[in-house]
């Protein structure tokens, strides 16, 4: 997609998604036509890379497992170097519906915000959300409200579009683990804006989620600490001015 509206890249982070990656790629093509697409593979041990390549998609292969944040940042860095104006992240597990990508792009182009979140909670809760997940997201909403200066309905969404300004920031500074919430705070520190648009969410096409209760607890502690550190850095800079 290289229209006057700006060059668009669909960035698909994937780790062991051999069961879903082909469907995700073909769905994106059905919706967006010949859009540029890169699969950022986080050193999968299954056939994810070969399947993506057989679909004619270029793969950015990490030399070893970096985690989602490290893998995403590599994709953002490459997209920035290649001169893309807009990048939409679409997870390789097929939970996000590519039919919502045009909505994200349209908002990025018309609103002037630096980041658009495909929100699963703008039109009620999706049917696949567990109680504990809902509680966690509710807690993060309350925490982020005063920090971001506006409410955010779905701070943990991995369905995100960014423009070139945000791309430049993320290519330099991006949280390595659990990046979604911290990325919002990183943008806020630069006085960037974000918008949310409603999106559809589906169950995983294949494979199983690696989220366990212990990991969820670690996630909460890690993200809280990350947000706190970001705020302290931001405040330190403000006090220096």
């Amino acid at each position, binding site marked *: 997609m290289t229209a006057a509206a700006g060059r668009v890249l669909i960035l698909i982070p994937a780790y062991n998604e051999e069961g879903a990656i082909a469907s995700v790629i073909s769905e994106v093509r059905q919706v967006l036509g010949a859009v540029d697409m*890169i699969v950022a593979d986080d050193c999968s041990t299954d056939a994810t890379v070969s399947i993506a390549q057989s679909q004619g998609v*270029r*793969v*950015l*292969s*990490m*030399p*070893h497992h*970096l985690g989602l944040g*490290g893998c995403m*940042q*590599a994709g953002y*860095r*490459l997209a920035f*170097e290649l001169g893309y104006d807009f990048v939409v992240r679409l997870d390789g597990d097929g939970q996000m519906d590519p039919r919502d990508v045009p909505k994200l792009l349209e908002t990025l182009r018309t609103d002037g915000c630096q980041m658009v979140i495909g929100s699963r909670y703008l039109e009620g809760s999706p049917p696949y959300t567990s109680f504990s997940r809902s509680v966690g997201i509710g807690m993060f909403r309350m925490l982020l409200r005063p920090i971001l200066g506006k409410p955010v309905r779905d701070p943990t969404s991995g369905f995100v579009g960014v423009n070139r300004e945000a791309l430049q920031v993320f290519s330099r500074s991006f949280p*390595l683990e659990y990046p979604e919430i911290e990325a919002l705070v990183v943008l806020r520190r630069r006085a960037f804006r974000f918008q949310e648009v409603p999106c559809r969410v589906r169950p995983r096409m294949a494979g199983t989620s690696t989220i366990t209760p212990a990991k969820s607890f670690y996630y909460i502690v890690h993200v809280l600490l990350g947000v706190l550190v970001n705020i302290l850095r931001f405040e330190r800079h403000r006090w220096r001015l």
Partner: protein
Amino acid sequence: MDRLFLVASLSSVALIFMVMYSLRREHIRVEYSVSWLAAASLMLFLSRWPTGLELIGAPLGVRSPHAVLLSILVGVLLLVLYRVSLLLSHLRDNNVALAQKVAILEYRIGELAANADRR
């Protein structure tokens, strides 16, 4: 001599020998061995000087030199571990940046090769 002090002295000497051996075999770099050698030397010195431990403990209200020695040991180990965590974090950041660069360069090389093949 008190048995605990003797064990502390022997352990410190053993640690110094272990670090020196690792240095000789190039299993540990000089800059990372310094903190372990300093910690072992301090423990050796203190375990041979119970009067000094009593002097250190007196203002803190700790009468037992054994408790002072163990407290210092724990404190020193925490400092060494903290330094190791700092180094690990630095290495991890560098490692991620390097891996990202390798991935991007590999991608760009693949693109160039594909373009050359098309010509």
